[in-house]
């Protein structure tokens, strides 16, 4: 009896072979995905001398906190960038959620007579666009986006795809609920805030995470519109640090800069340190974020 049970539980040979093969393949790819982050992290603690002698290493010969000291010696720009990104992410994400669910709610109402017209009106913008140049000209010449915080918020505040996802989600809620609320004398705005919004929390979590990630990782709008160093976003600050110290380095090797201080900068480890400082919060929140993403993805996978 015991023997039979055991045999029944035994994993078949083909499944076992596939598992060994699958584990190796996915382990290799997972390492390819994760090792760059490990390398950036560990080398931000390397001393510049080790780095110049041995290059980037899996375990640096000599550890040092010099890079972080330099980064934090003048923390104003890092802090400004952090402040900008955090504010923009919070304001942008909440406004974006409000807009997409509110619009999605109206278009999901079966008794709204122009819902097909407006659906097409929104959907058409995903098919055809005027392109970057007219959009950019409009924003800078007519809407005053240059060095204005709205330039970091407005371009990403409304996404038709998110609106469609919200519409489909709200359409899945029982319609009788809305009808009975109307009978009770609630107006449409009240129904939206009191009835619909509380029921869309899973949707809000997913769309919110996507949107917040978009805002957090945005460097493009800073590049296009912001020249004032104190108004730039975190990712653009990182971009500038990664590329402009490159410029300094080129200058140094051609011997055109006389600044002594530049030579003492731990340039390469500083780049790694800045990357860690900017990426840190996401990696820190990653286990939490990932769980919601995976849960919410099925919501996003609904066809338009």
């Amino acid at each position: 009896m015991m023997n039979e049970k055991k045999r029944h539980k035994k994993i078949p040979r083909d499944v076992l072979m596939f598992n060994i093969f699958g584990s190796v393949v996915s382990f290799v790819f997972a390492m390819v995905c994760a090792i760059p982050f490990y390398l950036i992290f560990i080398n931000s603690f390397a001393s510049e001398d080790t780095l110049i002698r041995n290059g980037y290493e899996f375990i640096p010969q000599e550890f040092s906190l010099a890079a972080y000291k330099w980064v934090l010696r003048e923390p104003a720009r890092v802090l400004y960038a952090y402040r900008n990104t955090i504010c923009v992410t919070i304001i942008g994400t909440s406004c974006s959620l409000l807009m997409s669910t509110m619009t999605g709610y109206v278009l999901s109402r079966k008794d709204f007579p122009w819902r097909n017209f407006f659906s097409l009106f929104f959907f058409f913008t995903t098919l055809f666009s005027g392109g970057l140049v007219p959009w950019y000209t409009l924003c800078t010449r007519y809407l005053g986006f240059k060095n204005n915080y709205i330039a970091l918020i407005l371009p990403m505040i409304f996404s038709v795809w998110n609106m469609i996802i919200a519409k489909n989600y709200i359409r899945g809620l029982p319609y009788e609920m809305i009808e009975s609320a109307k009978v009770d004398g609630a107006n449409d705005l009240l129904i939206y805030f009191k009835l619909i919004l509380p029921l869309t929390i899973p949707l809000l979590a997913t769309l919110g995470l996507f949107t917040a990630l978009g805002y957090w990782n945005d460097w493009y709008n800073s590049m296009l519109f912001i020249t004032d160093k104190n108004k730039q976003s975190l990712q653009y600050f990182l971009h500038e640090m990664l590329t402009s110290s490159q410029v300094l380095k080129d200058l140094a090797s051609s011997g055109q800069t006389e600044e002594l201080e530049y030579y003492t900068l731990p340039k390469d480890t500083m780049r790694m340190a800045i990357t860690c400082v900017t990426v840190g919060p996401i990696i820190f929140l990653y286990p939490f974020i990932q769980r919601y993403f995976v849960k919410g993805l099925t919501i996003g996978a609904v066809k338009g």
Partner: protein
Amino acid sequence: MSAKAKIRKQTESDFMKPSFLKTVCKHKILLLMLIPAVAYVIIFSYIPMVGIIMAFKKFNYMDGIFGSPWNGLNNFNFLFQSGRLWSLTRNTLLYNVAFITVGLILQAGFAIIINELLLKRFRKIMQSFMFLPFFISWVVAVAVVQVIFGYDYGIINKFLDFFGAQRLNIYVDPAPWPFLLVFFNAWKGTGYGMIVYLAAIAGIDQEMYEAAEIDGANIWQRIFKVTLPSLIPTIVIMMILAVGGIFRGDFGMFFQLIGNNGALLEIGDILDLYVYRAMASSSNIGMASAAGLYQSILCFIMVMFTNAIVKRVERDYSLF
């Protein structure tokens, strides 16, 4: 118009008018709720569509979009004569084809592999690692390039030194870039796509697997006869979305990895990058918008075309 018809039209409009107003009145709150999004889309999508006329103008900043003098088709002539258009279009298309193909194979492949793994904990950890690059902006990819492929201190070059091979200078040598771009695209996108497919696999009816087991199917038969066919709808939808955008390059990735590096532009220049460069240098805004319009039209044709084909083959899968 005869008097009779006129009267009829009048009565008709008299009849229609109150009813239309009444409907507006009845739904005024819903209409008010639409205003922010409608205004947004008009300002940031429809007005730029009108702004396409920039492609036919000799644009200057002072006169603006509407005040600048017309320029006929000169911008387009200039664009075609620059001789870059064909290679830009080809690059954009071929890179996207490579990204889509490699992406599909890796995403669906890893979803199937991960799904079959028996060690749940190991599975979760692998999944988390693969998903990680999705959360990071392309800016960070620049740091990754420095650490892994950098000329002076990069890991790869250290290995090449060790084996006595010649160092790879990817900032100067364009040859490895097609592979690198495909690699970075897969690096960043596989985790996300894999989870979409994993969600689809989770939705497959378990009874099918039980039936297959009773019939004595081995693991390969289970994958190729049950899992893969069940994934086809998801694959098709992902493909339609991807093919529709085949002339729209990933600006963030190309800008961060290729940027303005002249040595790499021959092999890594795409339409989006070209439009941006032409605009940023503000040497010829008109030509930049002409290039943008060219790309928009290509994209539009491509979406309509894919959708029409899908509609003909399998109506349920079409987007609209």
